[in-house]
């Protein structure tokens, strides 16, 4: 038995490198390997690549991270930090050498800015920039300044020199809520503010921590960014539509809908389509990955999807509790169907009157009837 165990350990060492680093940080070997396997699943990789992930995470060449925060509510930082227990994912980011992150770093003021500049200089082209929050462009970017410099100025410097920039949340990805109409500060996402930067977008409100960790793990394991869609989002997390992976989808196909909050269908967990759920127009892995250590997600808790991971969701996905947007130029109570019915009725009325007049009108001449 003992011999077998030794052999097993030997094999494990061969496959997954030497233990030690993670135990020191309070993560058991078992949990670490479970994490590596979960990451391979999140990235839609074959499980045979889990050892490679483990190897990459244990190597010493972990890149520095600069976490910038601009026009944001810190919701993405909160999503990462507020996990009930310290997760392996959190530690991955911890050991990433987070050199600068305003919310969690001990240093403050000039000391903090020095840490950022040091990383910029010493690790140029090798660090990962994580950006949270939109970047205001109007009036030379005066509407968001850190340490006396504008957000766009800092972003150009930091994201421009980074190996890669990961935007966490919809604001950093596409401008999000600060960019909602009328967008008083001219807020945009990182890719628009720094067109030359290598950006991978992780929209969502907030970002799903699992997707952030998986993206970092992908970069560490393969040395490159994961494949993305046309909106710069990694396909492993945004490649499928919410509606198609939703646990309430059978109720949609069956024809069972919540008609009113709190009705029998709502209590029975039926489809939220009629309550304005934007699952059919939103691409994200919420139904499978879920939030807060896979506890739940909006539709799971009985509220429709707000489409938060799509660009300009605040303008295009509203009203959140209706299927269709308001028709431009009409009041908010004029739904598309009311207007459409009005168009049809007006047409019928106009031609009805035309018909009556035509019927009473005598003396119309047609050359068709008068042959010869």
């Amino acid at each position, binding site marked *: 038995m003992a011999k077998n165990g030794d052999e097993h350990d030997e094999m494990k060492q061969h496959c997954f490198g030497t233990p030690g680093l993670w135990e020191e940080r309070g993560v058991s070997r078992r949990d670490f390997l479970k994490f590596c396997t979960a990451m391979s699943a999140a990235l839609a990789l074959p499980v045979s690549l889990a050892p490679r992930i483990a190897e990459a995470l244990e190597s010493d060449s972990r890149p520095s991270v600069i976490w910038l925060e601009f026009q944001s509510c810190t919701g993405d930082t909160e999503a990462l930090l507020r996990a009930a227990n310290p997760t392996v994912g959190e530690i991955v980011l911890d050991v990433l050498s987070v050199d600068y992150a305003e919310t969690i770093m001990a240093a403050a003021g000039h000391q903090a800015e020095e840490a950022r500049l040091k990383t910029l200089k010493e690790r140029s082209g090798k660090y990962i920039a994580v950006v949270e929050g939109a970047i205001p462009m109007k009036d030379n970017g005066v509407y968001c300044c850190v340490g006396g410099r504008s957000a766009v100025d800092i972003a150009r410097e930091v994201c421009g020199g980074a190996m890669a920039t990961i935007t966490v949340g919809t604001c950093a990805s596409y401008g999000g809520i600060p960019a909602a109409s009328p967008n008083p500060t001219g807020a945009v996402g990182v890719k628009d503010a720094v067109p030359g930067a290598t950006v991978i977008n992780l929209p969502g409100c907030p970002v799903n921590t699992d997707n952030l960790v998986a993206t970092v793990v992908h970069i560490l394991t393969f040395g490159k960014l994961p494949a993305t*869609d*046309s909106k710069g989002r990694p396909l492993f997390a945004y*490649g*499928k*539509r919410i*509606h*198609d992976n939703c646990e309430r989808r*059978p*109720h*949609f*196909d*069956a*024809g*069972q*809908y919540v*008609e009113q909050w709190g009705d029998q*269908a709502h209590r029975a967990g*039926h489809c939220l*389509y*009629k309550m304005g759920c*934007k699952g*059919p*127009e939103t*691409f994200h892995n919420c139904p499978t990955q879920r939030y807060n250590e896979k506890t739940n997600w909006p539709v799971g808790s009985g509220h429709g999807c707000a*489409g938060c991971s*799509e660009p*300009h969701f605040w303008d*295009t*996905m509203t009203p959140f509790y209706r*299927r*269709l*947007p308001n*028709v431009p130029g009409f009041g908010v109570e004029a739904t*598309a*169907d009311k*207007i*459409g*019915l009005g*168009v*049809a009725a*007006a*047409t*019928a009325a106009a*031609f009805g009157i*035309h*018909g009556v*007049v*035509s019927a009473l*009108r005598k*003396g*119309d*001449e*047609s*050359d*068709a*009837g*008068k*042959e*010869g």
Partner: protein
Amino acid sequence: MARNRSCLYEKYVWEVPVRLTHWVNVTAIIVLSVTGFYIGSPKTLGLVPADFVMGWVRVVHLTAGYAFAVSIASRIWWAFAGNRYAGWREFVPFVYPEGRRDMGRMFLYYLFLSRKVPHPTGHNALAGATYLLVFVLYLVMAGTGFALDAEHAPGGMMRVLLAPLYALFSNQGMRLTHHMGMWLLIAFAIHHIYSAWLMDVKERGGVMSSIFGGYKPVKRGE
């Protein structure tokens, strides 16, 4: 009026593809509108989760959509392959002087400003121009419809082929366009049936029956 009946003869105007695509379009638009209403604003008709009410409604909607698309494509082809009454020139009367004159005459008649009812053998010029708009609307409906359907397979061929549409519309804007397009087609149908009836009565050219049989009474020499 009946003096020279013998001078009229039955002229074959609407060929089979013209009439066939017309009636496929009629059927498809009715089926698509009814199912589309349900898809846009469904009622709870499923009793148990194993039912497939919305599923079947969507199957019917998509099938009708494909039939409609084939019909539109066939009719566009026939605008180049068919006789002169089916040809593309019928739908752009505004590009040649005679067409513009006929459009003006028809318009004056509609506005009760003229008592003379123009009597063309094919489409009346104003109707031809209207059908151009209707065809654009058809293409918008088919394009947005397939684009919305293609969202379930982001890497799929249809999603890739229709990529320009996703750049043109916001996601919700595409849904709104598809929905409002239906109302515009319903309004068109009301107008279309009325005008056909009006012309049948006033023009006395047998337009109503011609879409069934294909023949119109035409004077010799025309």
